[in-house]
């Protein structure tokens, strides 16, 4: 039965060869958001759902499905087992997923167990205080942290060892203090953290830049620094980088998509092409921007290289911070 099926597939592939670029586009495109509805992964999937529709690069309507569990671990596991060769589905991931891979939270699976397709865009870490905070610039905050790492209460939307914690820990590291001495409060997401900041329950929020757009204009909070090498476009152009204030602390939160390890080259390339075409469309880029992401266009090989390097970097960092026990 099987050889016959293979032969049939081959034959079909041969016949369709001349029109490969059309025929290879996923027939039943699906984006899996490995979380409950409403979060960042949902948003990541919506970007290609609406973006590719408006850019007219994808004709079949894309379905968005949810697969919550283990901050992406359930989906990663499933796309390494039952759906590892699914040609139609992509799964959303973020830097947080890469950090989880680096720290071994996805169990036996590593960064080599998926085919990384493309990015959706990126966001950058931001150091945020309330408008009436005594810290007027990053230096003021860093001096206080240097004098006594436990003098400032830092809060954010993730647990110890998460991306949000990493941002805070990197700040502390930049003044050669011990991240373990930091007073860090883990909230359930950015909304609760902002509430705690506005209510004066925490002093500093290590959040993401894009979510600040709404609050910048209202003047209730101040962004002391953006954790990126260069300044970002308006409305964020007035915010200094950490680097220009003398602290080289960078943190990008990339968002993107992967598919199962055993997906065929044909299916993988079709998706890569689809992204390449979409990236050229203004309509698609507008959707990315509207959803609060900054442009970052990586596809195919470039994307895979980025992920490999990033996970390696995160692994070193996490070991440094004592998040991974070194096996002797």
């Amino acid at each position: 039965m099987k050889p016959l099926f293979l032969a049939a597939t081959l034959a079909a592939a041969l016949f369709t060869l001349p029109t490969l670029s059309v025929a290879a586009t996923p027939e039943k495109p699906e984006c899996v958001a490995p979380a409950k509805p409403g979060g960042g992964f949902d948003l990541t999937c919506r970007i290609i759902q609406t973006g590719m529709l408006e850019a007219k690069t994808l004709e079949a309507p894309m379905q968005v499905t949810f697969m919550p569990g283990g901050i992406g671990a359930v989906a990663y596991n499933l796309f390494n087992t039952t759906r590892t060769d699914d040609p139609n589905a992509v799964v959303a991931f973020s830097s947080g997923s890469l950090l989880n891979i680096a720290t071994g939270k996805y169990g036996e699976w590593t960064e080599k167990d998926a085919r990384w397709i493309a990015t959706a865009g990126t966001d950058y870490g931001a150091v945020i205080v309330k408008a009436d905070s005594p810290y007027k610039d990053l230096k003021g905050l860093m001096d206080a942290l240097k004098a006594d790492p436990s003098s400032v209460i830092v809060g954010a939307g993730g647990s110890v060892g998460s991306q949000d914690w990493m941002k805070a820990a990197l700040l502390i590291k930049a003044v050669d203090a011990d991240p373990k001495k930091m007073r860090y409060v883990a909230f359930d997401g950015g909304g609760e953290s902002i509430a705690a900041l506005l209510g004066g329950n925490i002093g500093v929020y290590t959040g993401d830049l894009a979510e600040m757009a709404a609050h910048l204009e209202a003047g209730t909070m101040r962004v002391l620094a953006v954790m990126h090498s260069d300044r970002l476009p308006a409305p964020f152009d007035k915010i200094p980088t950490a680097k220009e204030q003398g602290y080289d602390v960078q943190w990008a939160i990339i968002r993107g998509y992967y598919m199962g390890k055993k997906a065929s080259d044909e299916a993988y390339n079709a998706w890569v092409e689809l992204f390449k075409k979409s990236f050229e469309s203004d309509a698609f880029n507008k959707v990315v921007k509207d959803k609060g992401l900054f442009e970052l266009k990586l596809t195919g090989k470039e994307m895979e290289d980025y992920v490999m390097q990033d996970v390696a970097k995160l692994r070193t960092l996490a070991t440094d911070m004592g998040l991974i026990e070194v096996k002797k």
Partner: protein
Amino acid sequence: MDVILSGLGQGFAVALQPFNLFLVLAGCFLGTLIGALPGIGPINGVAILLPIAYSLGFPPESALILLAGIYYGAEYGGRISSILLNVPGDAGAVMTTLDGSPMAKRGEAGRALSLSGVASFVGGSISIILMTLFAPMLAAFAVKFSPADYVALMVFAFLSLAALVGKSAVKTLLAAVIGLMIASIGVDANTGVMRFTLGSPDLMAGIDFLVIVIGLFGMAELLHLVESYARGTLKTLPVDKTFVSWADLFAVKWVMLRSSLLGFIVGVLPGTGASVASAVSYGTEKRLAGESGKSFGTGDIRGLAAPESANNASAGGAMVPMLTLGIPGSGTTAILLGALLLFNITPGPLLFEQKPEIAWGLIASMYIGNIALLIINLPLVGLFARLLTIPQQYLTPLITVLAFIGVYSVVGNPFDLYMVIGLGVLGWILRKLEFSLAPVILGVVLGNLFEDNLRRALSMSGGDWSILFQSVNSWALYGLAFAVVALPLVMRYFKRKRQASAV
């Protein structure tokens, strides 16, 4: 005041446009159905319909009006399966089963449905009015509420829960402990350490609340039914044409008022929503009822009115931080916020100034929606009550299948379906042993909130426990908690003294 009136005027001009009016009604109706189906609650209803509303190309205010209609429609609808089937339609309707289901079992489904419909209306209306008048002030209060204050709120909630004591205090406590144990499964929110996951990625995020509710209630109810079918003790309920009377409403007027206020305040606080609101108000009312509170849990109309007023009031309360600060007060408002972003509207402090037609249009649509829901729901009472005339051996399996589809469509992981079955067996055994299941659910909800906030408070203070007793809010809540426990005792003491002196 002028600002509010002119804003409302502008809002009604938007909400009363025929198309928007149609969307309010459609949203409310759909929401009622979504809420009534066990498994699909307001969060998932709104999440599923959001992309549809977007792709239909509605203007933002219309889409938001539709989604908000679904939100509070679902809060109304959640009570229906609670009362009729003893299976909560959504998380906020768990407490509604306690008195709603016994009423239906003794042939008063119509009365229970209509009474809870009115209670929902009262809760919804009070919260919308409070929101219109005091939103900015309340928002300022909500953000000031610190993790230590949440701890105090949870202490208050736990002590109200102690009022739930059914036949045996020990069993209620044990049930709550089972809930707390379930709550501790999964990645620890504070340190990221795995707890009780047995290395399975399916357990990393903990057991979904929906899975627990459907398992412990829905599945356990089915097993109970199978058992009574096998024994031949299954009764067909008579067609009931009961309806709420003015006397009923008069009897619960203060209950509804108090519960609405309580529910609204709990709703305003980010992180606590309908399930906490209904639990706290139920417990408080039972305590306040004193001796006569013994009938709570056996089909007391007060025990039905309290949670239904509270959970609808909390839905309105959750809108306050969303509209004024851009901070979601509940899971559902988080998705509504996402909807705003989708339409390229930045929610937050400036929403009322920059897009008044959206902010006020939404508020006006809530007034209309609330009235519409009452009008939609009351005539349907007879129809819904008639559902019970379907022989139970057909009805309950059907509902269970729907619940399974609901769980799978939302979570999409077959593991959760096994979990539902496992929890169903647990629920059935607990029922056999005469445990009440509501404390289990509350243990799960309150346990998570209590632990997260306690640890937040302690990480803020660097491990110093005195942080729990530093704010006025905390002290006020501890005071309330004490009062809830002490009042019935004091009242009993005076009553006995009076009786003694009368002799």
